[in-house]
């Protein structure tokens, strides 16, 4: 922990030095009557400077929907994404200010959520890669907190989205393999401390706003054990995710 903290502080110091180094920056010409620069990256921050038509601005970096720009006289401020998108490059081409990623065809997803695993509280985090619009590969890491044991579950699997073009709600189904590690066992807990598992899942996903989405999932696990009996587990969870 101490080492982690030290490395975080070191990274901060390194980063501070790096940000001073000169970078190759994008320059844009204002084509609308004016471009407003706010004092902060938010709708409420006051306008501190106005760049006129045909003047140049240098784009330094972005934060969420805001771009930090520098006016010719050195004045810096934050411009809104949609306002900056109507400027042009020196060549006259429209400014390459990317729009939000398209929800239907997005590739990456990172999310976390709450669930119930084998009637135990579950904290879940996942990464998801879209192979096609309707087929994803997902990797999930989760921790279940029970009264008689604690479990860490890691799984990888494939998921099919039935109607990816349904933005607000589309059903999904998946299969995969998982591994569970059981710790802190109290007497009535399982005899084995780790198992290989396989699962099938049914779920749904939907778009919320910008690059935000939700996911709900129900999973049925079959546990491969050496106890000479059939063992299965159920899980459901709900999570929020960011897509790229």
């Amino acid at each position: 922990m101490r080492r982690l903290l030290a490395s975080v502080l070191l990274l901060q110091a390194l980063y501070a030095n790096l940000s001073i180094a000169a970078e190759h920056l994008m320059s844009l010409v204002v084509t609308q009557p004016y471009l407003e620069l706010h004092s902060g990256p938010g709708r409420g921050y006051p306008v501190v400077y106005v760049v006129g038509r045909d003047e140049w601005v240098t784009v330094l970096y972005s934060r969420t929907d805001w771009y930090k720009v520098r006016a010719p006289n050195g004045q810096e401020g934050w411009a809104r994404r949609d306002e900056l998108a109507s400027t042009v490059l020196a060549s006259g081409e429209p400014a390459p200010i990317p729009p939000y990623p398209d929800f239907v065809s997005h590739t990456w997803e990172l999310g976390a959520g709450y669930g119930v695993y084998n009637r135990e509280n579950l904290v879940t985090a996942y990464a998801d890669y879209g192979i096609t619009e309707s087929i994803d590969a997902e990797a999930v890491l989760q921790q279940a907190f029970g009264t008689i044991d604690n479990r860490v579950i890691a799984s990888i699997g494939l998921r099919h989205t039935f109607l990816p073009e349904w933005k607000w709600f589309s059903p999904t189904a998946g299969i995969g393999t998982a591994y569970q590690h059981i710790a802190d066992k109290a007497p009535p807990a399982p005899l084995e401390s780790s198992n290989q598992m396989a699962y099938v899942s049914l779920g749904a996903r939907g778009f919320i706003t910008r690059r935000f989405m939700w996911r709900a999932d129900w999973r049925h696990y079959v546990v491969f054990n050496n106890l000479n009996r059939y063992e299965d587990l159920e899980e459901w969870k709900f999570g929020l995710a960011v897509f790229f």
Partner: protein
Amino acid sequence: MEIRLGSILLAAALLSGCGWFHRGEQPQNQVVAEEPPGEPSVIEPQVNRREVKTPKVKAKDLEIGAYFGALSIQDFGVNPVYGARLAYHVSEDIFLEGFLGTSKAGTTSLEDVFPDITVVSNAGRQFTYYDLDLGYNVLPGEVFLGRGRAFNSQLYVTVGMGDVKFAEKDQFALNFGVGERLLITDWLALHMDVRDHVFETSLTGRTKNVDNIEATLGLTTFF
């Protein structure tokens, strides 16, 4: 024969020379030939296109940092806590944040009064947690330092869940927090946070929900 060969070679050289000389005009002649009479000829410029690479704008939506403060572990006194945090800003209002922190619990009043009694072993006094939170910037604004200086700031609330490892056992914990982010520069921020880690335990006899409130001061950078 020699003269004839020489003149053929000379003619060939001349022709090729003329060809070389008029190379630039050849397409023009062709265009003129194809165009209906009366229209002006178009000159195609023989200039190579310059490859212009537009620099990419760097997105600085991630915030990483460290914090230090005091954690009140219910029944176990107030103790120093420190940790690391990583946030991703989704929009100007919403962010996702993860925390990783640790502290060491003191003794309960019972242990203070009766020194022979041990509620938790020495190794079990280590209080380690991780949180996954959803944050909302409720009150963005500016704070003023004297006449000439203004700093951007955001008052935010967070809610989330995670794990608390205490008394050598992992417990599911809910987190509620409120904090202030003060941007010293656009990439360096000072945080003041108050957060509560709530979990169920039966360490001190009966099963109950315990509130473990921490107050911390942190420093983060955007990248």
